[in-house]
């Protein structure tokens, strides 16, 4: 059956046991082999996992990387953390506009003949019109002669 003071042993091993509880735990520790073993293993791991020297790093380089990676496109919003809703709002508006435009494009009534349709000249019709006009002029002259 495990010892009920095991958690206290762990806390004590790493210096986190409350001062008020420490004397009682130390008294318990004298006769508890389990807690003694926990402290022993904790000491071994601490000795084994000794701190390593961290490599040097260049802050300006990291800062430059930060500037490069952050790549803020909406500069006017920089620092306005309370306005984060603007991005999804923009996206929703753009989406709604796209839907509306598409719907209008496919449902709006269009003229049968486009204004931009090129005008084709039918010379035969023009010729017929001129002949009719000539006939009318001849008729007019003959009427005037009769008068």
């Amino acid at each position, binding site marked *: 059956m495990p010892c009920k003071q095991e*958690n206290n042993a762990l806390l004590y091993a*790493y210096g986190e046991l409350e001062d008020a509880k420490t004397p009682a735990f130390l008294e318990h520790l004298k006769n508890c082999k389990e807690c003694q073993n926990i402290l022993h*293993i904790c000491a071994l*791991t601490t000795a084994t*996992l*000794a701190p*390593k020297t961290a490599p040097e790093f260049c802050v300006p380089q990291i800062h430059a990387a930060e500037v490069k990676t952050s790549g803020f496109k909406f500069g006017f919003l920089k620092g306005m953390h309370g306005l984060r809703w603007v991005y999804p709002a923009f996206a929703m508006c753009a989406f709604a506009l796209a839907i509306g435009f598409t719907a209008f494009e496919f449902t709006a009534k269009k003229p049968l003949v486009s204004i931009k349709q090129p005008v084709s000249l039918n010379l035969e019709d023009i010729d017929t019109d001129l002949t009719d006009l000539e006939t009318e002029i001849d008729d007019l002259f003959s009427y005037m002669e009769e008068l």
Partner: protein
Amino acid sequence: MKEINEQEIIKEVKNGNAEAFGLLVEQYKESLFSFIFYSVKNEAAAQDIYQDTLVKVLTKLKDYHEEGNFKAWLFTVARNKITDYFRAGNKFASLPEDESADIFPSKENTEKDVISKISLDNILEKIEELPEKDKEIILLRQYLSFKEIAEVLNCPLGTALARLNRAIKKLQNSLGEEYAL
């Protein structure tokens, strides 16, 4: 006092003072690198992960809330980077002899007596052989308080204690009688 200074430094970094970031990381850099190093057991990979972690922290610092524990957040970022490293298919490398030689402690005599009869290399090997979660909590406990571990692992403090207890028991069983008191 320390927290006030830390918060002030974080504000400085957020305002674009890159030099302040060096001050911010200075007090944790050794423990952070040690945690990464013992997690991946590869000097070059540890350096890469260490740099990546710092870059990530710097870029994400604008989203960091000052009331949180910066050290715990720093280790959470590092932990995620280590997870990414292993997900990418990388595995543990064995520690070269000359690197393990400098980890003998020079602390109190009592501690020296305890460790003098055993090989720390063997203990390191046994720690490596533990399941990932057990190894992780043993490593985290070397550099973080139980409260900070609970924050990093996103679990109650009691759970963190129970997990470490379980890991210590497994390590004890793995080491056997040779390493018992």
